[in-house]
C-alpha cells in the first residue's frame, strides 16, 4: 500500500504544480492584458484614489479636490468655476476630461512618467505619483475684465501677449460651473443633460472651438497681403476703387456701409472699414498670395493646440474672383475662431512675427519641482516688419479717429479694427460684433497685449450692433487691465 500512497501524494504534487503554474500565468504572464481590460475598474479607482493636481492661475490654484469617501474617492472642485471653465475644462468621473484638464491629464492625475524622480528607462518607477500642478499663462485681472465685459452675453474674448504668445485671457460666455459634472450619480447626469440641451450652449468653448465669419476684422489680413505684395505702396494714395464695386465676373455691386469710400486710400478704407477697397485689393493680390498670408496668420491649420485643440479657422482655397473679393472682407465662407483673430492682432503688434499661442506656462510635481516649461516658439512670420509698422499706424488711426474710438485708453497707444459680420440666410441673422486690437503703454517698447472680442448679442437691436459699439468697450477694459504693471504671482 505504501507505493500507492506515494502515488496519491505524487498526484497531489501534480495538482500543486498545476496551481502554481496557473497562478504564474494569471498573475505574471497575462497580468498586463487583464490590467488593461476596459472593464477592469482598478485603473479608474486608482485614478481617483489620490487628490488630482491643481491648475494654477498666477500661482493660485483655481481647482481643488474633495474627499467623498466613496469608491471613487476624490472629486474635482473649482474655486471660480464659470470664470475659468473655458481654460480648465472639466474633469468628470462620469464624462471624462476636456481642455487643460484633458491636455495635461497625465500630469494632473499623476501618471506622467515625467513626474517620477527616476528616469523612465530605469523601469523602477511604475504606477502613479501624486498629481502634479499645471500653471497657466492666464492673468486673472484680464480674465475677470473680459468675463465682466461679456456679462453673460454670448461671445468670447481672447487676449495674447504678442511677444511670447502667452494666452492672458480666455473667456467664453455664457459659461458653466464644471464642478457640477465632477462626480457620479444622477445629479451629475441631470446637470450634464441640462448643460447639453441649454439653448445658449454654455459648455461650448466659443474662444477656441467656435468659428465666426470674421467680417471686417479680416481686412487686416488682406491689407497685410496687399502691402507685402506691393500692391499698395503708399497707404495714403487713392486706390481708384469705385463705390459701389462690381464683383468681378458678375453684375453684383458690392456696397459700403461707410461714406466716402469712392477712390479711397487704404488708410481711409481701414479707418472707416470700406468694403469696396479691400475687396478689390484682395482680387488684385490674388488668391494664392492672400492664402499664403492667411495661412501664416493661422488660417486653415487643423492641428493648432494651445495645448487644447483649437478649431480650424477657414478660408476657401479654390475661389472665383468674385468670391475671392468677398473672402477678402471676411465674408463668404471665411470663418475664424476668436483665438485666430487675436493671433492676427498679435502678429501686427509683434512686428509681423507671430508667436505660437500657449496656455500652459509650466508643469510641476506635487512638491513643486519643475517638470516642464513651455518655450516661446514662432508660429510663422505673417508679414514683413515694415508692413506691420504701417498696419499699426492704420489701426491706431481706427481707434483715434475711426470706427474703434470706444477702445481708446488715456495715456496708451491703442490700435484696433472693428467688424460687424453678417450671417444667416440672406444675412438676416443678428450680426456678430467684432473687435481686434492691441495696446502699448506709453514708454513701453512694444505692445503688451493683443485682444480679440466677439459678441453675438441676440438681445440687442440689429442696427445697434457694431464692433465699435458692443465689442470695443470690452476690449478696452481687458487691455487696460493688461497695461497695469504685472505684479506677478
Amino acid at each position: 500500500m505504501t507505493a500507492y500512497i506515494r502515488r496519491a501524494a505524487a498526484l497531489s504534487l501534480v495538482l500543486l504544480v498545476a496551481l502554481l503554474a496557473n497562478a504564474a500565468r494569471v498573475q505574471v504572464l497575462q497580468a498586463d492584458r487583464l490590467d488593461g481590460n476596459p472593464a477592469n475598474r482598478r485603473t479608474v479607482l486608482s485614478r481617483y484614489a489620490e487628490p488630482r493636481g491643481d491648475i494654477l492661475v498666477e500661482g493660485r490654484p483655481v481647482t481643488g479636490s474633495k474627499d467623498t469617501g466613496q469608491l471613487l474617492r476624490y472629486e474635482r472642485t473649482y474655486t471660480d468655476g464659470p470664470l475659468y471653465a473655458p481654460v480648465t475644462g472639466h474633469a468628470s468621473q462620469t464624462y471624462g476630461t476636456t481642455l487643460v484638464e484633458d491636455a495635461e491629464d497625465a500630469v494632473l492625475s499623476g501618471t506622467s512618467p515625467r513626474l517620477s524622480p527616476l528616469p523612465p528607462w530605469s523601469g523602477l518607477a511604475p504606477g502613479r505619483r501624486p498629481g502634479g500642478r499645471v500653471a497657466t499663462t492666464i492673468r486673472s485681472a484680464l480674465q475677470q475684465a473680459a468675463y465682466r465685459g461679456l456679462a453673460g452675453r454670448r461671445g468670447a474674448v481672447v487676449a495674447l501677449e504678442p511677444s511670447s504668445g502667452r494666452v492672458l485671457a480666455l473667456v467664453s460666455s455664457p459659461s458653466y460651473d464644471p464642478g457640477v459634472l465632477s462626480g457620479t450619480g444622477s445629479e451629475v447626469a441631470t446637470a450634464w443633460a441640462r448643460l447639453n440641451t441649454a439653448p445658449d450652449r454654455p459648455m461650448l468653448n466659443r474662444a477656441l472651438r467656435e468659428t465666426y465669419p470674421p467680417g471686417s476684422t479680416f481686412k487686416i489680413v488682406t491689407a497685410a497681403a496687399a502691402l507685402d505684395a506691393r500692391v499698395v505702396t503708399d497707404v495714403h494714395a487713392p486706390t481708384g476703387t469705385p463705390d459701389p464695386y462690381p464683383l468681378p465676373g458678375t453684375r453684383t455691386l458690392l456696397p459700403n456701409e461707410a461714406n466716402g469710400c469712392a477712390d479711397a486710400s487704404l488708410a481711409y478704407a481701414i479707418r472707416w472699414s470700406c468694403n469696396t477697397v479691400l475687396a478689390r485689393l484682395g482680387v488684385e493680390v490674388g488668391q494664392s498670395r492672400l492664402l499664403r498670408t492667411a495661412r501664416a496668420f493661422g488660417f486653415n491649420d487643423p492641428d493648432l493646440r494651445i495645448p487644447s485643440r483649437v478649431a480650424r479657422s477657414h478660408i476657401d482655397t479654390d475661389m472665383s474672383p468674385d468670391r475671392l473679393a468677398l473672402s477678402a472682407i471676411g465674408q463668404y465662407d471665411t470663418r475664424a475662431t476668436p483665438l485666430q483673430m487675436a493671433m492676427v492682432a498679435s502678429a501686427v503688434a509683434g512686428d509681423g512675427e507671430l508667436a505660437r499661442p500657449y496656455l500652459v506656462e509650466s508643469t510641476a510635481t506635487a512638491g513643486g519641482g519643475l517638470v516642464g516649461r513651455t518655450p516661446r516658439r514662432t508660429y510663422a512670420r505673417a508679414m514683413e516688419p515694415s508692413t506691420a509698422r504701417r498696419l499699426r499706424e492704420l489701426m491706431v488711426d481706427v481707434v483715434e479717429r475711426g470706427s474703434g474710438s470706444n477702445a481708446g485708453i488715456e495715456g496708451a497707444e491703442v490700435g484696433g479694427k472693428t467688424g460687424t459680420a453678417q450671417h444667416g440666410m440672406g444675412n438676416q441673422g443678428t450680426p456678430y460684433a467684432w473687435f481686434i486690437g492691441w495696446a502699448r503703454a506709453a514708454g513701453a517698447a512694444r505692445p503688451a497685449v493683443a485682444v480679440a472680442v466677439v459678441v453675438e448679442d441676440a438681445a440687442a437691436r440689429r442696427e445697434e450692433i457694431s464692433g465699435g459699439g458692443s465689442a470695443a468697450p470690452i476690449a478696452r477694459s481687458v487691455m487696460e487691465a493688461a497695461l497695469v504693471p504685472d505684479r506677478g504671482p
Partner: protein
Amino acid sequence: MTAATTHPPPPRVRPPKRRGVEFSLLCCAVLCSMYGYAGVGLARSGAVPHDVAGYGAGLGLLALTGHLAVRFGAPYADPLLLPVALLLNGLGLVLIYRLDLETPADQAAPTQLVWSALGVALFALVVVCLRDHRLLQRYAYLSVAAALVLLTVPIFFPAVNGARIWIRAGGLSFQPGEFAKVLLAVFFAAYLAANRTALAHTGRRLWRVRLPAGRVLGPVVAVWLISVGVLVLERDLGTSLLFFGLFVVLLYVATGRTGWIAVGLLLAGAGAWAVGALEPHVHGRVEDWLHPFASIEAGRGPGQLAQSLFAFAAGGMFGSGLGLGHSSLIGFAAKSDFILATAGEELGLAGLTALFLLYALLVARGYRSGLALRDPFGRLLATGLASILALQVFVIAGGVMGLIPLTGMAMPFLAQGGSSVVTNWITVALLMRVSDSARTPSPGPGGDVPAAEPDVTAVLVPPVREGAR
C-alpha cells in the same frame, strides 16, 4: 526488553516528541497573523488597530488550547500540523477582517473567530477523547448513515444562490455537506480496509482488466451514487467532485489497481459531460470558465470570474499590500469562495505561493502519517483526509483562477464559513491522532518491535537507521 530475548536488543531510542518545536511555531503563527492584522490597519487608517492585542490574545488562546490538548492527548503527533492550520486560520481571519472594512454592514470576522474557537475546541476534544483512531472503524456504517442524512437535509431548505446546501435555523446557517466529508472519509477508509483483499483479487476477468466482484463493490458504488445524486440535486458540483475524487483515490490506494483509475476517470468524464450539458446552473459555470469575458463583450460588465482574474492580475508578483487592493469588486462571495483573490491581489504571486505551500505542507504531513502507520484503516484514513484537503484546495483555487470551472467551495481555513472551519479543525485533529499513533513507540510488553516506524525517514530508509544508532 523482556527476558524472552537472549540477545539484548539495541537500546531503544525514544523518538523526540517535538512539542517544543510545535510551541515555537505556534508563536510564529500567532505573530504572523498579528502582523497581518496590524498591516491592514496601517494601510487603511494609518494606525495599528486598537484591538490588535486582543486579536493576538484570542488567537494565542486558541493556539494554547490546541497545544495543551496535543501535549496531553497526542504527545507524539506531528509538530507541523497544528501551527500550519493555525497560521492559515489566522491569515483567513485577517483577510476577512480586511474585507469587512469594505462592507461595514456585514461584519464576518467576529463570527468567524467564534467558529474558529469552536473548531479548536472540537479539535481539542477529538485529540483528548479519541485515544485510538481505530475506534472509528467500528462506526463506519453509522458514519455513512449520518453523512447521507447530512447531505439530504438541505434539500428541504430553500436554495441559496442556486445551491441547496444550506441549513438555516435561528439566524445560524451551516453547510452539512462539509461535515459529511469527514464522515465519508471514515466510512470509505473503514470499508476499504476491511474489503480490500476481496476488491483486489476477486471478480471476473474481462480481457486484461479484472472486474471486481459485485458483492463487495455494490455498497461502495451505491453510497457513491447516492451521494453524487444528492449533490447534483443540490447543484453543489464542487463537493460532488471532491467526493468522487476521494472515492477514486482511496479505492486505488486500497486495491492498487489502475483499472479503478480508468473506470473512475471514465465515470467522471461521463458524469461531468452529462451534468455540464444538462444542468443549466453547472452549464453556466462551464461557459463562464471557457469565456470569462463574454459578459463584458455582451455589455453586461465583468462577471465574478473576470473580476477574480482582474484581482489576481492586479496583484502581480508582490501584491498591492494588505488592505490596498480592490478585490471587493468581486462583490458577492468575496469573503468565502473568492477569498483567495484577495490573497492573490494583496499578497501577490509570492504570497499566494506561500499559501499553497502551507497547504502542501499540511497535505504532505498527512500522507507521511499514512505512510508511517501499519494498520490499513489508519493508512487509508490519513490518505483520505490529506486527499480531501488537496482536492479541495485544487478545486477552489483552480476555479477562482480560471484553471477549471468554478465551483462554490470554501478554501480550507481561509474562507468565511463556520461549518468549513469546524470541519477543517476536525480533519486536522484526526490527522494529529493518526500521526501520533504513527510516531508513538509501542509501550506494551513484547513491543520490542515498534508498532510503527518511529519516524517517516525510517520508512524511507528503514534498515540504516536502526543499525546506525
